[in-house]
């Protein structure tokens, strides 16, 4: 059996974080080459500072200066750093208890070799030259008995940006696979549920009503009816088609469920529910395993379908 088709799916966004009073103070101080903790109800000094006490859940407010030097309490060697990690050469992730703190901070140690790392190793912060008010203002820790660089003045920060990038491989299901391979040949392959005999396009692994595999394969024409639609006038981040455009539900002749596609070749104000449409395919050499082989639908010129012929698909 051949492997189902797959394609990369990359999702990324620069999220922002409004910091509030506690993390705002912590990150503003990092920008000043200072590390600040907070005292909990039991007297422990938490670094990074906690906004709410882990024992009483009350808001905490007693900030405590700690030093940018400390001791390794636990560590793990990273022989091959990944995208987005603090260093691009082998390093240690370590739990570091800073002097004056009662809890440990997770950060990177640029130790060169795991032979240099042990529980109890003394480390100090290596401050980045360009600091923005982020945990990465500490570039990493380094093994040393010496004090870290002294504090300087800097503006406070109230917000940070945290880019998140996820890289997936999206695989088609075994049922979708013949559908997608059909699209590469300009064919529209649907599947029929053996129980309710409803025809699904695009096909599903199982009928959502009966829960059984949809085994019967049938080929549909590229004509259909607009059941309902909207005119998208609003631009938004990540949009692939410039607005305005008509996003329409197309019910192919012989199918029992409509799908969303683009409707062109008609002014938005002239689009109607029940309008008959036909597919406009891209040039054959641009075809791939995607519904985008159909560039858009356009009116076919046939008379509108009567409301009763599609009203059960709304």
């Amino acid at each position, binding site marked *: 059996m051949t492997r189902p088709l797959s394609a990369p*799916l990359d999702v990324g966004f620069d999220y922002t*974080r*409004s910091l*509030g009073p506690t993390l705002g103070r912590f990150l503003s101080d990092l920008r000043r080459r200072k590390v600040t903790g907070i005292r909990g109800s039991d007297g422990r000094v938490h670094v990074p500072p906690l*906004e709410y006490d882990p024992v009483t859940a009350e*808001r905490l407010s007693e900030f405590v200066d700690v030093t940018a030097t400390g001791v390794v309490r636990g560590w793990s060697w990273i022989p091959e750093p990944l995208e987005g990690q603090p260093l691009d050469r082998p390093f240690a992730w370590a739990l570091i208890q800073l002097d004056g703190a009662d809890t440990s901070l997770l950060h990177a140690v640029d130790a060169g070799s795991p032979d240099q790392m042990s529980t109890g190793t003394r480390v100090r912060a290596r401050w980045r030259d360009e600091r923005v008010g982020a945990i990465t203002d500490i570039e990493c820790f380094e093994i040393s008995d010496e004090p870290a660089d002294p504090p300087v003045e800097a503006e406070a920060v109230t917000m940070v940006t945290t880019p998140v990038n996820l890289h997936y491989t999206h695989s088609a299901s075994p049922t979708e696979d013949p559908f997608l391979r059909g699209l590469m040949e300009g064919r529209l392959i649907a599947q029929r549920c053996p129980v309710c005999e*409803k025809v699904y396009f695009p096909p599903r692994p199982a009928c959502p009503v009966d829960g059984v595999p949809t085994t019967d394969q049938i080929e549909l024409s590229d004509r259909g009816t607009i*059941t309902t639609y909207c005119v998208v006038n609003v631009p938004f981040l990540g949009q692939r088609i410039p607005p305005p455009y008509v996003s329409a539900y197309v019910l192919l002749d012989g199918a029992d469920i409509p799908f969303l596609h683009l409707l062109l070749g008609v002014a938005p104000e002239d689009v109607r529910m029940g309008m008959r449409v036909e597919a406009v395919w891209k040039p054959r050499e641009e075809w791939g395993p*995607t519904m985008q082989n159909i560039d858009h639908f356009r009116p076919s010129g046939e008379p509108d379908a009567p409301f009763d012929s599609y009203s*059960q698909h709304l």
Partner: protein
Amino acid sequence: MRPAAVVGVGQTHHAAKRLDVSMAGLCREAIDRAMADAGVDWSDIDAVVLGKAPDLFEGVMMPELFLADALGAVGKPLLRVHTAGSVGGSTGNVAASLVQSGVHNRVLAVAFEKQSESNAMWALSVPTPFTMPVHAGAGGYFAPHVRSYIRRASAPEHIGAMVAAKDRRNGAKNPYAHLKQPDITVESVQASTMLWDPIRYDETCPSSDGACAVVISAEPTSGQAAWIRATAMRTEPTTFAGRDQVNPQAGQDAARALWKQAGITDPLSEVDAAEIYVPFSWFEPMWLENLGFTDIGQGWKLTEAGETEIGGRLPVNPSGGVLSSNPIGASGLLRFAEAAMQVMGTAGDHQVDGARVALGHAYGGGSQFFAMWVVGSEKP
């Protein structure tokens, strides 16, 4: 099943950007108000239930994990609920079930969204390989179904604008609402930009930062109580052949179960106020029908007659509803909490006179998750 009641509610001042607080601080603003309203402290809380919409909205996986201390959950059971936009309602129902079942005596339910940290429209339109990228956020998803409703019910075009104007005027009476537009009119709504034809800008919910919390208890803690007379939740697939997208079966089934459990035979006569999840104005008449307040195709007539205004036969969204504040994950719990405030008589300027029975309603996903409760001033 033993009786349970909402004994305290709290919410944030909702806004487009609450840049002054962290996610933890946002939740605590609502929690601290709910606990003060209930007259309880942390030792009185047995368990915490957190609701939030998709993690992609803030880009925080498992927010319940990093919020555990802020939610006062250390040493207690903490549950995360997730049913898309209906999650706030489901969170209330899960918390209620923990008390009704006798598992816990007092449970804190919290729900939040900090939409300013991301872009929900982007998060709801991630392009899946092999498909046609016509998606356009929630508005683009729901607009074709609104068009179907208008056609099926032969509803006049101005109904959507009437709902929007009413809810925004109501929001102006709610000190916590994000949008306060006391001077909005049907004409000004109709003059606003068409975003996803047939949905206009003023008929669309805002994007809000906010949180809501309720304390649910087996016994009153401070004298006030909104007794939970019924809860219901139902689900259906997003798409299947023959699915009714205008009047989903899951919503009908949930409503039928809800009214039966509450002992209500004529909802329109027996319910004094309704907080219904209406993120786009036309969903008011659609859900009035789906919930059984009117016959099919008749919901818009109740709206047109002014009966859903405060002072009408069935005031809908006296708080201003989702159209006035939409911290997505919290929006459902806000509906539930506002219903409780109505029967406790604590709704202030948007109080419905003499409200004794109220509905809280939420829906989510592609109209596939439904959660609702009925609260009353009398102990069942």
